[in-house]
């Protein structure tokens, strides 16, 4: 499609694809690629530097850092991808309803959205964690709830803009029912800003999950998570520097790639919107 061609020409897009595709590969096949068992402890060999057996060295329990890295990406990805998907779907539905139907229903929905936005994301996540415990499932739900307002707002303002367009009026005047108007005229035309928001939300969600794990409130040990590893590593900065550096590097790279993807999508999709007017 035309859009894909344009994406390929965009440098940021190519770079992020370069990073994200291997990443997805690791998410899917990580455990199989790991040279050692990520949970296997060997305290005699704690905080060792890199060797042939442990390419990235070991942590304070003697576990292989590389293996833990390869496996540790899964919870982050699960939480962010699934959570974002949930936020997207609920935000889309709420936003379209609020924008198309309007009136009191619309007002109520947007006020609810404002209330959720009152909480700084980490605070809300911490609240939920301390009430219902940590773990991938709870974190996914938190992410979905936290980022629904962003999608709702975008869907709402786009729907209002599109709703007043003459081609929507024409559809109604010809006799289309509401479902057809929504799916055929409104939905395709509000998609672009939502897609851009998806990549931004994914990177925010990764930041959130890793931040929580760093504080010890996210993925619980012994399961590894990149943020958690950084948190554990901080006591050993002077002993084994790379224990901190490796997960930090990969985490930053992942977030950078998703952010660039969001920028690239914005470059590609936004001018097209202007063009079609």
């Amino acid at each position, binding site marked *: 499609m035309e859009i894909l061609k344009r994406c390929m020409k965009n440098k940021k897009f190519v770079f992020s694809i370069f990073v994200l595709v291997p990443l997805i590969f690791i998410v899917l096949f990580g455990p199989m690629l790991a040279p050692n068992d990520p949970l296997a402890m060997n305290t005699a060999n704690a905080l060792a530097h890199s060797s042939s057996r442990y390419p990235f060295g070991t942590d304070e329990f003697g576990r292989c850092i590389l293996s833990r890295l390869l496996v540790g990406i899964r919870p982050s990805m699960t939480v962010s991808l699934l959570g974002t998907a949930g936020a997207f779907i609920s935000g889309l539905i709420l936003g379209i309803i609020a924008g198309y139907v309007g009136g009191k229903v619309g007002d109520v929905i947007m006020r609810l959205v404002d209330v959720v936005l009152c909480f700084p994301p980490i605070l809300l996540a911490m609240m939920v964690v301390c009430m219902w415990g940590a773990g991938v499932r709870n974190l996914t739900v938190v992410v979905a709830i936290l980022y629904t307002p962003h999608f709702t707002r975008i869907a709402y303002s786009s729907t209002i803009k599109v709703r007043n*367009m*003459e*081609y929507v*009026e*024409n*559809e*109604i*005047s*010809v*006799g*289309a029912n509401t479902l*057809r108007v929504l799916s*055929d*005229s409104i939905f*395709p*035309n509000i998609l672009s800003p939502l897609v851009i928001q998806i990549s931004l939300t994914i990177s925010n969600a990764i930041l959130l999950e890793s931040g929580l794990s760093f504080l010890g409130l996210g993925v619980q040990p012994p399961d590894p998570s990149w943020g958690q590893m950084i948190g554990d590593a901080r006591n050993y900065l002077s002993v084994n520097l790379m224990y901190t550096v490796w997960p930090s590097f990969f985490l930053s790279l992942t977030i950078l790639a998703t952010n660039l993807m969001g920028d690239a999508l914005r470059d590609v999709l936004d001018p097209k919107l202007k*063009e*079609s*007017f």
Partner: protein
Amino acid sequence: MLDVRNVTKTFPVKGGMFSSSKKGVVHAVDNVSFQVEKGETFGLVGESGCGKSTLSRTLLQLIPPDSGEIYMDGKNLVDMPKKELRRQREQMRMVFQKPFYSLNPRRTVREIISAPMMIHRHYTKREMQAEVERLMDLVGLSRSYIDRYPHEFSGGQRQRIGIARALCLKPKLIICDEPVSALDVSIQAQILNLLKDLQKKFDLTYIFISHNLSVVKHMSDHIAVMYLGSLVEVAPGAELYQKARHPYTQALLSAIPDPGAKKKDRIILTGDIPSPVNPPKGCRFCTRCAYATDRCRQERPELKEMGDGSKVACFLYDKGGENA
């Protein structure tokens, strides 16, 4: 064919969160009545904000009027049950002003034109393809464009797509809401001629709305002049331009630029445009009319027959024709 009676549409003016002022009401369309014959072009003229677009929306029932009746071939469209209205909607279509906003940017030409077919009846793919091609030929678009997107076309071409879409399912009445206002002058002529040809071919009835008097003159058989929500004059086309009666119509006509003519007296309207929320008690035009009398300021004039096929709403012409 179309009989509009006493249609009124008002919009409430919201007073804002903390304001204690009385909520006003905008009389967008105020007690409008007119008739349109089959096969003719009925022109509707007026300045921006006079309510022509709202009126056209009420005709299509996009905005249900507050009161009044709209008879299409004898059937009242107002409060018609949904199923019947749906069927009736195949007969009435609209061509819109802004070619850029009237086509769905995410759909191909094929999908745009065939949309009415998909909504109403079940056609086979082959039938739809044939019909779309036929319509494209009719409006002068090359068939090769069928899978392109609106942003790949010029304004005039997009308007042709809009016309092709309006012709789908063979309607009887097409409301043209400022169809050429957003186009270059050279393209305007092409589109207007296209509309005229199609009218002859298919015996279409048009309601042609515009603020541009010379365009309306070119197209219409009857013309209605609208001011602040009500009709002030209705006359056959030629009559209106030679024998305009209402002071507002006269002012409008004098404002048409005519490079050939000698410097003529322009009627320049003085006074303020009354607010649509608080219109004057009497004639809507009295604040700007050179001939306003006390009666004008107190009473609203009704549209009255003048005997030669025209109607005027002005007290100047009461009691047997006192020509201004």
